[in-house]
């Protein structure tokens, strides 16, 4: 995550440096503003259909705060009854990898769950609580186009927000909704007009089409018809939580690295002290190579043959650096697959997560190979002036 914010800062700095075409931007902004106004007006209409609001359920809305070596993170949750018992519901991905977790209702009550049960296939955890009057009811029947409310910790701001929308599609284990939930809303209840929970806000998927339009889809797992298994959370988290977060971090860092490197083959990579061994080692080797290349800057004059020879050498170094980075990815993907195939205690959700990570790592490796085969092989570092 750290690398992510660095990138954001870099990006903002670059943007600050480019005050280009302000007029064009403005008209685009106006368009966006009116689109948002329309969206919010629609939301208001949906809200008007509700006979209750956040204030009626504030005691059942939970703000989840996690800390670990990697820093802080947060999510949402809610209190509901299921199978005659009271539980705190949240997503598995909200609590995985955390050393300390704090659950507090929006009304200020600290919750102390007595264990952890995980859904067999979906990204849901339910944590047993003492019976409570204010627990929400769960419904197994979402209505297509039915109005819904989402109350949760949007953007990890530490407050519960109110969002409204509609059910836009219904699947066997999940539903899609139009309410604008974002990061931090993970684990929020999706409530219908009768104050029943029909799903749990879980993930967002997006696609950018050829016209540069972005399609965003928001998914919520359904809570009924699922098998639940009790786990020893400490052990489960020790076994998988760290691996989960580290792989996530690895993929993010790789995305950062290739975005820097692909801009210019001789760019330095700022990952010499990266916490992940493979990245750290590669970054050091790569930067040493870049230093060596820059050391050749003042070699004076040379013949065409000499120039070709030096360029060939640099090319080979760059290609071998690409091979090394690609290998970091494929090695990790292989280790992950081996890891998941041996683990019997992992839930279906986590297994599919790890499989997804392995797939993405292979894809990144493919991207690096393509960069090497299509670009680096033809790359000449030095030119005659």
């Amino acid at each position, binding site marked *: 995550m750290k690398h992510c914010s660095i990138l954001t800062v870099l990006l903002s700095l670059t943007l600050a440096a480019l005050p280009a075409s302000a007029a064009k931007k403005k008209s685009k902004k106006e368009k966006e503003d009116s689109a948002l106004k329309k969206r919010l007006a629609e939301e208001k209409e949906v809200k008007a259909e509700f006979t209750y609001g956040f204030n009626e359920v504030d005691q059942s809305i939970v703000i989840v705060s996690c800390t670990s070596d990697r820093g802080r993170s947060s999510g949402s949750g809610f209190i509901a009854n299921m199978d005659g018992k009271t539980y705190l519901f949240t997503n598995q991905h909200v609590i995985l990898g955390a050393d300390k977790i704090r659950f507090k209702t929006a009304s200020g009550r600290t919750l102390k769950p007595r264990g952890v049960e995980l859904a067999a296939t979906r990204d849901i955890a339910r944590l047993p609580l003492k019976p409570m009057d204010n627990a929400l009811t769960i419904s197994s029947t979402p209505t297509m186009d039915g109005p819904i409310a989402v109350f949760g910790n949007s953007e990890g701001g*530490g407050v519960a927000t109110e969002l409204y929308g509609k059910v836009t599609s219904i699947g066997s284990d999940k539903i899609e909704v139009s309410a604008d939930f974002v990061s931090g809303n993970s684990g929020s209840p999706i409530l219908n007009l009768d104050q029943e929970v029909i799903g749990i806000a879980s993930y967002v998927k997006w696609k950018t089409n050829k016209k540069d339009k972005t399609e965003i889809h928001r998914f919520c797992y359904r809570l009924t018809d699922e098998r639940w298994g009790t786990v020893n959370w400490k052990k489960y988290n020790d076994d998988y939580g760290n691996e989960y977060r580290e792989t996530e971090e690895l993929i993010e860092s790789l995305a950062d690295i290739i975005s820097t490197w692909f801009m210019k083959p001789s760019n*330095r990579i700022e990952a010499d002290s990266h916490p992940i061994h493979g990245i750290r080692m590669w970054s050091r080797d790569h930067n040493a190579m870049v230093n060596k290349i820059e050391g050749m800057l003042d070699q004076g004059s040379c013949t065409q043959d000499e120039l070709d020879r030096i360029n060939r050498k640099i090319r080979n170094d760059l290609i071998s650096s690409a091979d090394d980075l690609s290998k970091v990815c494929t090695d990790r993907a292989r280790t992950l697959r081996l890891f998941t195939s041996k683990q019997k205690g992992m839930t279906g959700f986590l297994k599919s997560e790890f499989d997804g990570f392995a797939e993405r790592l292979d894809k990144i490796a493919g991207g690096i190979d393509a960069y090497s085969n299509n670009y680096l092989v033809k790359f000449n570092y030095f030119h005659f002036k």
Partner: protein
Amino acid sequence: MNMNRLHYLKMTSAGALLSALNQQAFSDEESDSDSDTGIDFTYEDIKDHLAVIEASVKGRKSSACGFILMMDDQPYLITNQHSILGMDRLKFVSPAGRSIKPRKIELSTTSDIARLALSEGDGLRANSDPAMGDAVAVFGNNGEGGAKHEIHGKINGVGADIIEVTAEFDEENSGAPVLNKNREVIAMASYTRDSRGHIMKKGTRFEGRTRRFCHRLHHVKWQPVNWKKFNATFGMAYQESRLMIDDMVQVLNSWADGPLDTVRFDGRPDKTLADWIETHNEIVSQAVDIGRGRREFYAAYSESAEKLVTLCEGQSREMVMLSEQRGLTDFLVDELDSLGATLEHLADVINRYGSSTY
């Protein structure tokens, strides 16, 4: 390019740095419907219970808001810790200019709130039950800091320790009371946060949005401190880092105009940074792009960047070490850690940027 990605909604805390960067704020979606909020009193009605905190640190003046609140029948001046920590000079006055002399200082152990016991006087009453959608008004002082006097809005977020409001207060209003329509204080205006850009926020209310948060004042655990000692040990270093971050962001924003551009600075940076700017500008003014001079220039240039990195890293280490000392509140431990992390981020950014000219 056709991309298909998956993103989970877990939120990782955004760096304090983000709020320092200039983002275009989107004016709040509900402000158009705020004409009738049910607030029937004005700044004039409550100004006797407001306070202005006039401070200066390293020759830079600042002004913050505060207010007087009755807690257990005792009057207290309430403000943010960050407005009083590490100041060289600190003065509390009423909007009318009357001096206020606090007896002792207590700090919240977990959030950015301080309360200063007063010997006498009357104050506002507290209410600990804010509800979503309630009308609120935020009242700032009329000091030199440019805080807005009176800002109306609604509660649009409720948490155990904080609430969010649509009233568009600025950083200068931090420490101002947030009142409900019964003139009761439900929270203290504390900080604003710019939503971090992400593709999933595109077209939503969270895109390019500035959110405004206020600390609730109930359930606060107060820790009395020996102010002089506490401030000398922790306050000074804390404020020094905050200033350094502001200055570094300013330097970086100017430097970002172009790696070989002259770095400009509005106001007075501290001596170390002033020296750095002078030396750095001298180096870039002698930029050479060809021949032997090129290499020497880049060596000097990268050494210059390295100096700034060392500065940030040194201060960062100091913050982390300080945060491990005894006698700190949990709030300040977190603050020092996060200042340390921000300084480290800055060091990374400078490092990257400084080597991007090759």
